[in-house]
């Protein structure tokens, strides 16, 4: 099989006396979805931030393999190079779309901006591409000139996904992408993420506290507790036949609808 796209080796990070990451290693291969689950304070969001280069670890290494097969140490990269990576090969979907979108710029502008940052210059083709992406996330073309603040929470999240995917990233980090949404809106978004990611062959690192979301989207799962990975493997195997006491507790604590 192919080489990993992202490798994390023995990551450590403490905030004062709190060990947020305590020797975490992980691998991500092209086209796969890896879920990171655990309760609040388990270190899962910290891990996502360190993997994506947004937070520097005290120790350990994150390696990214570019399309030309060259390995880059994410935390040794000069800042402009890391920013360029975030604008092109990578994407980041925040739990709160307002953290990523420019609320004073039209929906089409939000998508087009990322294309322009990647070098697109022809206005007509940028607009066509923006319309196409809005359509793919089920936002009508007639909304292209509307400001995001006129959008519902679910639409904002879909707009953020369109903006992120417009540059055809190979790797997308997602932090609770369906958190804070109504269940009906959440179902629609899950379906959308699942079909887009599958069709475009994007690799995803997905942080979620909702193991049902992990089950629907992720092929592999990593269970975290107190800054450590307590269990990892095939998603349905870890959830249906958990080996670690903590995973058994996590799985048995889910309410049945």
């Amino acid at each position, binding site marked *: *099989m192919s080489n990993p796209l992202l490798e994390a080796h023995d990551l450590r990070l403490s905030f004062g006396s709190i060990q947020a990451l305590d020797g975490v290693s992980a691998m991500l*291969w092209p086209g*796969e979805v890896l879920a990171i689950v655990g309760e609040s304070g388990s270190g899962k969001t910290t891990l996502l931030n360190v993997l994506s280069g947004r937070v520097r670890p005290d120790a350990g290494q994150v390696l990214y393999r570019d399309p030309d097969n060259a390995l880059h140490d994410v935390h040794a990269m000069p800042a402009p190079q890391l920013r360029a990576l975030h604008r092109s090969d990578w994407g980041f979907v925040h739990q709160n779309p307002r953290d990523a979108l420019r609320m004073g710029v039209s929906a089409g502008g939000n998508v087009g901006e990322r294309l322009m940052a990647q070098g697109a210059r022809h206005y007509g083709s940028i607009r066509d591409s923006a319309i196409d992406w809005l359509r793919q996330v089920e936002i009508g073309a007639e909304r292209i000139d509307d400001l995001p603040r006129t959008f519902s929470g679910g639409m904002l999240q879909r707009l953020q996904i369109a903006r992120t995917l417009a540059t055809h990233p190979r790797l997308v980090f997602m932090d609770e992408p369906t958190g804070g949404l109504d269940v009906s809106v959440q*179902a*629609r978004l*899950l*379906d959308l993420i*699942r079909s887009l990611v599958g069709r475009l062959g994007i690799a995803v690192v997905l942080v979620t506290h909702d193991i049902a979301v992990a*089950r*629907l989207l992720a*092929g*592999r799962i990593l269970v975290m507790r107190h800054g450590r990975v307590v269990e990892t*493997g*095939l998603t*349905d*195997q870890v959830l*249906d*036949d958990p*080996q*670690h*006491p903590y995973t*058994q*507790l996590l799985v*048995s604590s889910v309410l049945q609808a």
Partner: protein
Amino acid sequence: MIVLQTEGLSKSFTLHLQNSARIPVLHDVDLAIAAGECVVLSGPSGTGKSTLMRSLYGNYRAETGRILVRHRGNWVDLARADPRLVLEVRRETLGYVSQFLRVVPRVSTLEIVAEALTLRGTSHDEAIDRARAMLLRLNLPEPLHALPPATFSGGEQQRVNLARGFIGGHPILLLDEPTASLDAGNRDAVVGLVREAKAAGTAILGIVHDAPTRDAIADRLFQLTPIRAAA
């Protein structure tokens, strides 16, 4: 030609939340299934038939022993394989029809069935056509195809599950109670599908409680014997 084989397969569950109680379920199971053969697991309730099926699919983690699957012309030991290889084996070689349908809430029945084909490289248009034909064959009328199956009856959901399981043409199929909530007419449709799959060289392992279906599809039975729970 043998395509699925277990050697000394054992499985127990350790319940950490219940004083680490250990429940042994499978002990030293040696099973071999050839292409074109249908084997039905027999034995009373609680002998581990479903646990065996789930272990073979990698849904449960095998404790000791090997689970050998012929995949792309080579043997893969699913008990030790990397998760990504297990996913590839499931996509290409090993199909599973569970008792319960588990799908994304909003997706239409037609798309759910067609996905089993597109995952294996079929174009979307062709997948949709074949999915429609398969659903009709299992007596699910066309007006239902556009709806998500969440509101369907148990028997209808089971037929969606069967359509999804059979349409992919996996060389090995695991069937967990495929006819449990079906009426006689639909059971006959399933028997027809199994016979066709066997004729095409598919190896099938099933749990089938209803005797007429079992007698119609099984080439032989495989007996699982209960093991005493440790005190």
